[in-house]
């Protein structure tokens, strides 16, 4: 196929043969006879240089994708790898100071050439390149320093050490803290100094207890109290309904009384729970960790504020690896904190999953049905051909157009009507008349239905005519043929279409922004509260999470690691779905290859 390496020496016959390709014969004629040394001497083929130029196209394309994946992988994974904390001392003669002191403590996250516009004339003139470089330090302690990151001129640094007893702690608020521990002040007045060998085990124990207590508080507040609140809300709506009625019948009066009674019962259940949560919260503040930040300032925090801590400069490789996986697990299973810049992304993963699932349930039957109609039932002609072109094109219509349609049609029109019909009590607060997971899923289903139709149609077309005719000849009905032969044979293609649709749906953000995705949803769309699946709820989504973190968060620098990590998760989901599509296709191909004729 890629045969000819050497063009044959131009002979008279050859030229005659080539006259049809005038251009080529001229080119061939240009070959200098002097370069020919004999009958079988290789001659440079024409245009080889340009082949290299096209090779460049492929090389760039491949380099782009591989570099991008590597970048995300490196930055996404790197977030979780524990890094050493450096104690940086500035040269006395430099005027770099950190909060008046000459020391800074933190993780060096970046070293780069300084922006020309920030350089002083002396620095530009300096013979040492290091003077024009800078280091970015993650210092944490936002509560103490006001910011978590800072840049320092690399030339001003006199000394870097890695003190062993420094602690990096994750807190409920204010992000991470990096500090030298001083002592623990117990609730009963006892004090354990950081030099004490008991200090470390005690801190570990107290932290574990605090984490366990936090879980308990969360369980009480989120689930038990949350359930009561939900019932309360419904009852209050009923209460409002009765209040609106001008003349109450006897039955109404009784029903109203029952509603009020239940409100009171719930209130009675609520009080002890709230009390218990309050007591636990009180307990969280009992023990205090006193520490010193790099500026020498002494600070303290309740151990109940701690999420976790480690000694970054004491960790072995094994310890780091364990911490690394623990942090990944934490990230995948935790709930977000502090405007999403800390904690985990579980609700976003779950929201993406549920939305994709509902979308698949909606898109699968309809897409397949439309395809069966087009391929098996409709009379092939100009109409079906134009419908096919139109559907093909819908796959290319920008997703935002589907988004605006979803908002106008599903949310405002359909949702608004549902609200007026069934949720009259709650108005003007919309129930379905605002973005929610159902509308988002349906919008994406509409967006991906052309993908499924096209894929299914192609799969149906690939089933040979012989199969159908054989089945019909055996006396099977048309539907039996489709059900038992055509559909199974085309299942790989259909599934591929579905998985591709899922991949597209999972990665899409633009339309979701209009129809119900939020940066922080208080509740998951599926939970243990009746009716378990809450289709009207707003939800979180990995893609939107990235957008929100990177562009809406107050401290985008602090959010960057989280964005990379979330990006990695999203890319994994999408790439795995795409690979799954390919694998399912291959697997089913093998399975049914024997089954079909």
């Amino acid at each position, binding site marked *: 196929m890629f045969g000819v390496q050497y063009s044959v020496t131009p002979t008279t016959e*050859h030229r005659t043969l080539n006259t049809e390709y005038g251009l080529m014969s001229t080119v061939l004629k240009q070959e200098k006879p002097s370069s020919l040394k004999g009958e079988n001497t*290789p001659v440079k083929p024409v245009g080889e240089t340009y082949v290299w130029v096209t090779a*460049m196209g492929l090389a760039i394309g491949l380099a782009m*994708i591989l570099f991008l994946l590597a970048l995300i992988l490196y930055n996404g994974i790197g977030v979780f790898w524990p890094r050493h904390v450096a104690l940086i001392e500035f040269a006395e003669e430099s005027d770099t100071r950190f909060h008046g002191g000459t020391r800074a403590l933190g993780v060096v996250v970046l070293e780069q050439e300084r922006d020309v516009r920030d350089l002083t004339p002396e620095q530009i003139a300096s013979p040492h390149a290091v003077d024009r470089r800078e280091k970015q330090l993650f210092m944490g302690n936002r509560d103490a320093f006001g910011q978590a990151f800072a840049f320092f001129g690399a030339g001003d640094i006199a000394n870097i050490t890695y003190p062993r007893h420094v602690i990096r702690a994750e807190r409920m608020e204010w992000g991470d803290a990096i500090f030298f521990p001083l002592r623990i002040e117990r609730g009963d007045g006892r004090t354990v100094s950081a030099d004490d060998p008991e200090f470390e085990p005690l801190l570990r124990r107290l932290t574990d207890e605090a984490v366990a207590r936090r879980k308990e508080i969360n369980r009480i507040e989120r689930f038990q109290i949350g359930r009561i609140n939900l019932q309360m809300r419904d009852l209050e709506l009923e209460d409002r309904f009765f209040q609106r009625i001008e003349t109450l019948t006897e039955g109404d009066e009784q029903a109203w009384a029952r509603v009020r009674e239940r409100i009171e019962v719930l209130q009675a259940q609520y009080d002890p729970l709230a009390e218990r949560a309050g007591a636990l919260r009180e307990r969280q503040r009992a023990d205090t960790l006193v520490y010193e930040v790099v500026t020498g300032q002494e600070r303290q925090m309740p151990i109940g504020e701690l999420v976790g801590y480690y000694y970054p400069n004491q960790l072995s490789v094994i310890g780091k690896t364990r911490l690394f996986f623990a942090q990944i697990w934490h990230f995948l299973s935790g709930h977000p904190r502090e405007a999403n810049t800390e904690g985990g992304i579980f609700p976003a993963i779950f929201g993406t999953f549920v939305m994709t699932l509902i979308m698949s349930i909606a898109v699968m039957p309809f897409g397949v049905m439309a395809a069966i109609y087009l391929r098996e039932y409709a009379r092939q002609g100009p109409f079906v051909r134009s419908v096919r072109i139109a559907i093909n094109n819908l796959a*290319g219509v920008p997703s935002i157009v589907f988004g605006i349609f979803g908002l106008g049609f599903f949310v405002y029109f359909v949702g608004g009507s549902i609200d007026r019909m069934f949720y009259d009590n709650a108005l003007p607060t919309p129930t379905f008349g605002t973005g929610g997971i159902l509308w988002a899923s349906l919008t994406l289903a509409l967006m991906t239905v052309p993908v499924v139709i096209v894929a299914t149609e192609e799969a149906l077309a690939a089933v040979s005519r012989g199969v159908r005719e054989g089945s019909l000849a055996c006396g099977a009905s048309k539907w039996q043929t489709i059900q038992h032969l055509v559909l199974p044979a085309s299942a790989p293609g259909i599934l591929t279409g579905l998985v591709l649709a899922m991949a597209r749906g999972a990665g899409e953000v633009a339309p979701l922004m*209009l129809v119900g995705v939020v940066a922080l949803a208080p509740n998951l769309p599926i939970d243990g509260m009746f009716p378990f699946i809450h289709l009207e709820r707003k939800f979180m989504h990995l893609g939107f999470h990235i957008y929100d973190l*990177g562009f809406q968060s107050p401290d985008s620098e602090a959010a960057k690691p989280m964005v990379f990590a979330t990006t990695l998760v999203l890319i994994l989901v999408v790439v795995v779905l*795409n690979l799954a599509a390919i694998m399912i296709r291959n697997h089913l191909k093998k399975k049914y290859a024997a089954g079909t004729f």
Partner: protein
Amino acid sequence: MEGTEGWVDISVNGTPSKPLPERFVVAPATLWFDRFMNHFIKVGGLSIIVAVSLIFFFILLQILPLFRGARVQEYGSLPVPPGDYVLMGTDEWSELPFLLDTAGSLHFVDTVEPDGPHDRGHFVRAPAFLEEVEAAVVRYNEYQARLAYGTVDGRFAIVDVKYRPTFPDRGGREVLVNLEETPLLSIGREGVALDMIAYGDSGARKLAAAVQQVDGRYELHVVSLAQRRTLLGPGELRVDQAYDLTDYLDGEPAHVVIPSDADALLIAMQDGRVRYLHYDGRVFTERQVFQPFADLANSRIASMDFLLGDVSIVMTSVSGENRMYSIYRDPDKDMRIWGHTKTFASMDHAAAFYSAGMRNKSFLIGSGRFASLRYATTKQIRWEDELPFDIRLALLGPRYDRLLFLDAEDTLHFYDLRDPHPQAGWKTYFAKIQYEGQAEASYAWQSTGGRDDFERKLSLVPLIIGTLKGTFYAMFFALPIALMAALYTSQFLKPEIKRFVKPTMEIMASLPSVVLGFLAALWLAPIVSNAVPSVILAVVGVTVSAYTFGYVWGHLPPHIRLRLKPGYEFIVFVPVMCLAAYACWTLGPVMERTFFLVTDPSTGLQVADFRLWFPTVTGLGFEQRNAFVVGFVMGFAVIPIIFTISEDALSNVPDAFRSGSLALGASRWQTAVNIVLPTASAGIFSAIMIGLGRAVGETMIVVMATGNTPVTELNPFTGMRTLSANIAVELPEAPYLGTLYRTLFLGAFVLFLMTFIVNTVAEILRQHLREKYRAVE
């Protein structure tokens, strides 16, 4: 599957005379189910196709109201006591309008339920000072519901008509009214009646002007008013300073107006000249004299009044010409002056009545039986008609929902005005429009502003240009790479490698655009903006290196050259490319230091920085998040699409073509370019089209990686706003079914059409190509 419809029938109806053997009898359930599925699939399939095409019609339905004119319909009339009425005003809901007679009394008419149990009928209120002195002239400011009275003895007073809605127990709404008047203040010559009065009040600054006739000569006097604020509320209003501006009058003045900012005075003379006096709080200076109807035989200004916002004046000539002048900053003179901005359709006569809208830039104008509702910004006539009565007074309801007319027979006519989108129209969306305050017409998109009288600018042109700009830079970058890669993969690459290369490139297509946008904005944009020369150098360098390396390789001795089997070139090229890119990257700063020097104005030092150099040399902007970065990153989305489809097209060219060409002695490059490429050209074209469609509709990358500023330039170093990004950014804020909401739907419709047309062309080409190959094979 055609023609298989009948086969069910044979087994059902074609029963032979002999009883059917049992094994041939079809179970009724099977038949029933088959028939059911037959209909089910047909109905279901068709309805899904209909539902999908509904998108198009739904969007169309949302935008149609934008292009509808105003609907005006009379819904009632009410006789009022006969009187010599000179002006009309009303409350916000047009429920309690008043008519002012020549004596200065206000005749209120309750229109809610005439003859109903709570009807207040017709009642008269008059300011208290009218008992003391007679009114000579009255002027009404609709927007502030404020009357300025001039008396026969050279004094004036300001009367506020305070409407107040109450909600009585019986339900509904009842509008109450009372008058708040200032004491009489003197202006100009004492004891001389005022001929004209004008009043402007911005809260902090108050200005009143009066024209008096003294011994047949006209005098113009202006006073500024001051009101001291005390702890107990506003103090007494008193005359602060008096100005005699008679010198500016050279003849009889026709109109005198003061804008509500009280920073200017406009005097129209009988000969049609308008003097614009600017007031800075202390003195009046004449800034400009202009003659709006200088080109007409009779240049006299018949009517002249402000539009909402008081920065435009609508004037009519004696012959019915209707023009608008607006104040804007003149770039040459560097001061705000008036200029002719709009010419409206002429009327048959000079305007007898004029009423400016209080919600938008509309106004009601007309004379005799003729009334016309016009929208200033678009110069569009929203509605006009000959009414069946002579119009004495007319009023445009404050909520832009009512028209009130008083006819010559003392009957008040109420018209219902339905015009939800007065600003919309083809002109707004696609034509250059000179908005108030702008020195020239432009395409502008600015949908929100800080002030109440802010006018939305809704031109889609900058968005379309932004879309095309993004698409252009994306294609500029993606097209060569994708096509070269496709050509190489299909023609020169070893099939064993191709098996891995193609899915890898396809994974690129599955990257969510939000990821690309995030990387573009937070990772790439800062890097690129720091090193533009390096990037440009790297792009050129890699291309040149490919060519040079290929050339050098071709000139190597055959025993070296032939060691590389054909189809592996790109692997050899990868290190070369990396080397070239690295070299160019390091050379970039050197180039910057050599060519892109700017002198820092503050220190006088020479700084090598492309970011500063580019704006100083070209005069265009430089932003970190720019079209260049977006184009590059959008390449990730577009390259795989173009690559896959054109690679398919190239690979599908029948082998006979290629084999024939190669057998005849053409080199592989000659075969690829002269035989394969032309044959697959339609497929490649359709690939480009589909890639184009993707670039046009891309949303997240643009939202994140550009500044989202609407621009109309193609500078690669500034951002843009595309149609799709515009929807994503603005729709969450747009009120349901409002003008902006529908305009965004219009944007979506334009986007839909753009991609749909492009895709259809591509699809038809592809089908055409398929037919062609079929013929060959």
